[in-house]
């Protein structure tokens, strides 16, 4: 993932706060015009909106794998969880480190690099493969604002 421009907007923070059921007035500056509007701790996840290649958003003019006339717009057979991220990948863990408070008015950019990779024996005999992705969100001066570490897990088929 590479996000070249992620503007932190008060209206976006308001919609995000509503979605997570957060009534903290600090997040509603777009309505009231009050003060500096802080971003909720998990807000940088919404950078997906600014990632041109993000696979879990319908692309204009392209088929989508959700339901329309049929239960999926994707050829049947290989569908499963994980959607456009490919295969049976699941989000296992998410970690954030905040280097300074993030507020409306900041403009971030982000780059993602692979991190560690490890295996664990699953309870049903298959192998679980864990892999990390580390995303650095920086401001316009290049200063680090948030580091995000995503751990995904892939289930490998039980032999036989």
């Amino acid at each position, binding site marked *: 993932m590479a996000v070249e421009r992620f503007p932190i907007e008060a209206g976006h923070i308001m919609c995000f706060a509503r*979605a997570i059921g957060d009534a903290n007035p600090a997040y509603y500056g777009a309505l009231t015009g009050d003060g500096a509007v802080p971003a909720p701790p998990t807000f940088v996840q919404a950078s997906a909106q600014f*990632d041109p290649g993000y696979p879990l958003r319908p692309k204009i003019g392209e088929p989508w794998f959700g339901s329309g006339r049929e239960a999926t717009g994707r050829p049947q057979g290989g569908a499963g969880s994980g*959607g456009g991220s490919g295969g049976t990948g699941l989000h296992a863990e*998410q970690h954030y480190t905040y280097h300074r408070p993030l507020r409306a008015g900041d403009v971030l950019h982000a780059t993602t690099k692979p991190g560690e990779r490890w295996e664990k024996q699953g309870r049903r005999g298959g192998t679980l493969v864990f892999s990390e992705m580390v995303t650095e969100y920086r401001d316009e001066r290049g200063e680090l604002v948030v580091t995000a570490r995503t751990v995904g897990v892939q289930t490998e088929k039980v032999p036989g």
Partner: protein
Amino acid sequence: MTTVKAGDVKELVLTEEVTRTQLVQYSGASGDYNPLHSDERYATEVAGFPSVFAHGMLTMGMTGRVITDWFGPEAVLSYGARFVAQVWPGDRLVATATVGTVRDDGVAELTISTTNQSGDVVLSATATVRTG
């Protein structure tokens, strides 16, 4: 600044009932439009789940409220979570945060657990916050 000591506990009801509409709201706000979270027909007929279910990040976002209600959004230095079990429409979620070590510089370590109406843990998290 909020002053706390080891063992202090805060409990917060995150929602009396997770609704499908809330999953749609979170899809729209976050940009994660995976139909597993909003499209009942896809989730059941194609993916084989009993219904749509919540984004792990929605549960993590809701759980964050127990931290920010207590210490404020700008006191949070780190927040990490493990997605333990799926959250379904109809679930009632409660988050419990417990203060562990409070360091000399005022940084407190928290452990947080979010459970559903059956008492099952759905998300387990840690955070560090600036206090005092």
